[in-house]
């Protein structure tokens, strides 16, 4: 007798955890806090994602990879992936696993707050030193900044703080 596996949210999320950031293969879209909603109707899945930055060119790739991964699940007929701005993505949505994955890749996790003069602080992802300098708020992608560790002398990147308290 064949027992059909029920498409529950947990199963879908574990599948989505296989979808990595196209540029950072140590973090998934779940780790980054991009998954906003999962809806299941019969054998059809609809996933709503939050873009990290509005002009991120990786979004169409993520959309495609997401749909492809979901269709690998047993008993899925269709998988729809959409993006919404109705809730803005903020950097505090990055999970503990996400923070570990980012560090593993050499990227410092986003800082938790920003000073009045616009500056913020993160530690070196390689040696943990606090002796770092900001080289450029704007980095190789919209979501990252470029820093330099004066202790271990490594350049590194950090995820930008994105929060609704920024004015």
């Amino acid at each position, binding site marked *: 007798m064949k027992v059909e596996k029920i498409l529950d949210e947990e199963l879908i999320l574990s599948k989505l955890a296989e979808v990595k950031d196209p540029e950072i293969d140590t973090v998934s879209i779940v780790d980054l806090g991009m998954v906003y909603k999962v809806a299941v109707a019969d054998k059809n899945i609809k996933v709503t994602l939050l873009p990290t*930055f*509005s*002009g*991120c*060119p990786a979004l169409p790739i993520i959309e495609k990879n997401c749909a492809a991964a979901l269709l690998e699940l047993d008993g899925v007929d269709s998988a729809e992936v*959409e993006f*919404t*701005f*109705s*809730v*803005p993505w*903020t950097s505090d949505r990055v999970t503990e696993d996400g923070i570990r994955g980012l560090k593993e890749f050499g990227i410092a996790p986003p800082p938790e707050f920003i000073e009045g003069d*616009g500056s913020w602080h993160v530690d070196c992802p390689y040696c943990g030193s606090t002796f770092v300098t900001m*080289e*450029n*708020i*704007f*980095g*190789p*992608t*919209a979501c990252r900044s*470029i820093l330099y560790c004066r202790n271990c002398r490594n350049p590194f990147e950090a995820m*930008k703080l*994105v*929060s*609704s308290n*920024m*004015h």
Partner: protein
Amino acid sequence: MEKTENGKFEGLTETDQEYLADLLKQLADDDYLLSFRSSEWLGLAPHIEEDVASASISQDMMGHASMYYGLLGDICGRDADDLAHFRKPADRRNSILTEKRNGEGEYLDAPKYDWAYHVVRNLYYNMHKKVKLDALKQSSCSPLRDVAAKAAMELYYHELHWRTWFIELMNSNDDAKARMTAALEKVNGECADLFHLGKYAEDITAKGYIAPEAEMKDSFRKEMEKVFGQTASVFSFPDAQKENGRLGGHTRDLEDALELMNEVYGSVPEAKW
């Protein structure tokens, strides 16, 4: 008026749609044009880190334009790419400030661009955008509120960037000061329509989509006076200028920009990228 779960508008009358479409064109075309003009600095910025920063800001701005074109597409049933590429100059609602060329020469032919102009234009534009996004966050229209909240988080870094450049150069050596003064004069001749809300201005504000022009101008003035307070110059803002982009009046620079931007897309519009 609220939107549904999938971010679409609901309960808009035909006239509401017309008002919102005009406002969305102003917002989208502004970011689209200035994003393009800024991208023409790629490889030409004063130093390598600035090249990265400037390009990253342009990319964010194109993202903002894309969000607005997406909403506009929901209203008029057209594709966002088509709205960005195929609308004629007379249908464009961007401010004159966002369409002007970067200086003498062409990107591929002896570009003698003016960095002082780039800094001043971007300070004016970004501060204006900050004020507008603050107003849009209070909009009666929820899709506009959502998009404004998203754009404002990214704008935070842009405005900080251009304000820093502005204050540094205004307080620098005589060469820098002279260039900045000339740039201020140029920007003053192109920015009078920034806060103009177009032909439906009264209806747009009566509907609560955005704050009235006078209110936003007042907030802008206060913010700019704070910035100018850190320099030896006094802030001024023009009342009027020859063309008003919000009413579809534009300069030759807009036609040139659109022609160049649309060349590839227009050659095979049905191509998937």
